[in-house]
């Protein structure tokens, strides 16, 4: 328990620093009296003259910060010589830009948006359980580098063709492997937000199963993913073809907010996981199927139900398992199925997600001294509650015209309960991970995450000694 103290101290210092701020604020003089005092004519004249003097002394200085002095504008008519001077300046600028373009600019045949992300964390724990994925010391997290862009822009109907090419590090070896590799085509016109959208995406991509597996890392509050996402292999990418679209959209022009009543996803995939060494083609010659449906609250932006959704996902595939009989190993295929249900309320400032996932995997067992193919069922429940302070997730607010590198500092405390039962026939054996965390968004693409994980492992209802771990992580991208 001693190692819980640091996080308590961090949170405690936040509490006290804010209390101090509040105390400081209350020292400010009291506001103006509610009693209306009419200014005299002399006072009005003086104020008007003061305003006029200020107006006369102020000029045009684009980008001036309020409170700083400005310079007076020269409103003399422009002469021919002035105009020639401006033309010369423009020509010089043009030449400079051309030289920069020719010598020092990365060029691409088509539109390309370069992006990347990296995480580095420090963790320590006091137990032997490694299910929370925390080891003492510094650790490099997932790294990615990628290009996304447009291959064809259809101004007529918005039936665009887009691409993604991303490489990311392997979790254990840090080898760089392909991550997102796909082409996407908008089948239905996408210029009218009142109409439904339909896309087809082919290549290696995320599997649209549930919430945890589909949410990008920069949107996830936790440092470590929920247990089921990795044990059920739902958060890994796969090769396949995805049809996804929506129906009955509600479009709130006044807030630039569009929400469809129904979202659907159908995917045919290899089921072998991401492309890697020796994993370029479908090894078992059968395709897996995946589907996901989401019902969203069809409401306007300012409705309290905005962000409420319920979803369900299913996955049907096969997995080859080796069965040994009479010292002869025989490969045998068994069903590998997944089912999920989720509910989410992602509003500002508060939100929560709850996700249930169930898996069925083939396993070889011995019956009457003979190995036969059976199945193991596992399931998981994950609940996350969060609260946002600041405008990090208010899209329209953060897109501001500013001269400086401004970004609204935001904070996000959260709490998560994550339970994984590896064999549902043995309910008394399961692992619970409680996470209390705090995210600090201090720049556009950078955040500091502090997580306290308490992992409790139960075997036949016997609780192991808890594992307490603290992880602090910087996640940054561009």
């Amino acid at each position, binding site marked *: 328990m001693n190692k819980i103290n640091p996080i308590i101290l961090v949170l405690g210092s936040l509490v006290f620093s804010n209390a101090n701020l509040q105390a400081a604020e*209350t020292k*400010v003089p009291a506001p103006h009296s509610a009693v209306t005092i009419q*200014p005299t*004519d002399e006072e009005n004249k003086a104020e008007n003259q003061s305003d006029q003097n200020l107006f006369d002394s102020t000029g045009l200085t684009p980008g001036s910060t309020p409170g700083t002095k400005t310079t007076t504008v020269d409103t003399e008519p422009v002469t021919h010589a002035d105009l020639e001077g401006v033309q010369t300046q423009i020509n010089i600028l043009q030449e400079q830009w051309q030289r920069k373009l020719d010598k020092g600019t990365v060029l691409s045949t088509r539109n390309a948006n370069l992006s990347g992300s990296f995480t580095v964390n420090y963790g320590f724990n006091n137990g032997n359980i490694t299910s929370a994925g925390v080891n003492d010391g510094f650790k490099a997290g997932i790294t990615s580098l990628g290009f996304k862009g447009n291959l064809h822009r259809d101004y007529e109907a918005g039936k665009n063709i887009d691409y993604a090419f991303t490489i990311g590090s392997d979790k254990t070896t840090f080898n760089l492997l392909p991550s997102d590799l796909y082409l996407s085509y908008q089948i239905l016109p996408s210029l009218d937000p009142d109409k439904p959208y339909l896309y087809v995406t082919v290549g290696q991509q995320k599997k649209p199963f549930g919430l945890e597996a589909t949410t990008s890392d920069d949107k996830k509050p936790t440092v470590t993913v929920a247990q089921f996402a990795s044990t059920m292999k739902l958060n890994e990418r796969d090769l396949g073809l995805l049809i996804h679209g929506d129906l009955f959209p509600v479009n709130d022009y006044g807030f630039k907010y569009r929400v469809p009543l129904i979202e659907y996803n159908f995917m045919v995939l290899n089921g072998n996981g991401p492309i890697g060494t020796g994993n370029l083609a479908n090894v078992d010659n059968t395709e897996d199927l995946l589907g996901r449906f989401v019902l969203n609250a069809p409401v306007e932006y300012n409705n309290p139900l905005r962000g409420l959704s319920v979803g369900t996902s299913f996955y049907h595939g096969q997995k080859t398992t080796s069965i040994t009989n009479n010292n002869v190993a025989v490969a045998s295929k068994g069903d590998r199925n997944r089912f999920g249900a989720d509910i989410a309320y992602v509003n500002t400032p508060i939100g929560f997600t709850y996700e249930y996932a169930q898996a069925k995997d083939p396993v070889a067992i011995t019956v009457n001294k003979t190995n036969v193919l059976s199945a193991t069922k596992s399931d998981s429940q994950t609940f996350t509650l969060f609260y946002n302070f600041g405008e990090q997730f208010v899209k329209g607010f953060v897109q501001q015209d500013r001269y400086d590198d401004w970004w609204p500092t935001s904070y996000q405390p959260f709490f998560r309960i994550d339970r994984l039962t590896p064999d549902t026939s043995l309910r008394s054996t399961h692992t619970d991970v409680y996470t209390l965390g705090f995210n600090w968004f201090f720049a556009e693409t950078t955040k500091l995450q502090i997580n306290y994980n308490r992992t409790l492992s139960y075997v036949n209802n016997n609780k192991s000694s808890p594992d307490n771990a603290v992880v602090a992580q910087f996640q940054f991208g561009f």
Partner: protein
Amino acid sequence: MRKIASVFLLIGIITTLISGTAQSADKPTVIRIGCTGSNRPIPGNAFGILYQLHLLEEEFKKDGIKVEWNVFKGAGPASNEALANNAVDFVTFGDLPSIIGRAQGKIKLLAIHETRRSAYTIVQPESKAKTIADLKGKKWGVAYGTSGHLYFSKLVDKFGFKESDFKPINFSSGDGKAAFLAKEIEALNVGSEVVDYLALNQGKVIYGTDRAPELKGTAGLVVTEAFAKKYPEITYRFVKTFVRAAKLGSEPANREKTLSLWAATGTPLSTYKKEYANIPLALILDPIPDEYTISHLKDGIKFSKEKGIIRKAFTFEEWYDGSYLNRALKELKLEKYWPASDINGKPTPR
């Protein structure tokens, strides 16, 4: 269970304390303003004068209240989003977004920020289109959710068409300009920058508010009901300072300087000079809702409801709170300073 309860309690304490830092009980630590720029992060009209003369900063400096300017790229919709998320206290934006904002949220109209905002429909220089009817089935850039959206809807309605008779494409103003110059769209709705398109032969006007003044736009100054209720005196002082700025910009002697200040937004001075040629700036900056602006806003509310742009109708009287403005006008002895206009925009005694 006790441990889980403790965790929730800790989160609750942190939440309460952090949220408490935003504003103290008696007065705000900061006044958060939302507005829209043009090509630079500088607002125009009365807000432009307020911003560049630092009048609000001076007004609230003695109270230790900071003034925070947020110039949104996303225009009206971004302002509404900021209001809905309690990220701003005062906002100035166009007629349609403010109507949508009031239909869904709790905001009060305090004063008029700009009247007679012009709008034009331009087509490609080589286009054979001469009338609105000629644009049927053609791609037409419209900034949805902005005052340009209301202009577009009322324009097609005026000629007896439906929006679906055309191919409206939703663009922000910057993207719309790029698409039009790339000749990807046939028509585009623009504001005062129309003179730039004409001067550079980049487009030609087929219709505009010069021929249909009833389609001109109006922008308002709004405050969140929560802020006005919690800080009525601060709200009053804000409005009073706003009126002082409008007065400075309305003075005929200050005309050249005012236009120069507005040119800091990135719209050239020559554009403003052409746009407002022969128009007294007092007509543009009149903060008092008169028959002309009231009828325009009432019509906008009615039209938006009929066209399904808003779901819930409301009355102008429910929206407008003139108590702060009237008090400011009285204290500044400006009740009769600005000329009033009748429903058709013609001068009338105030």
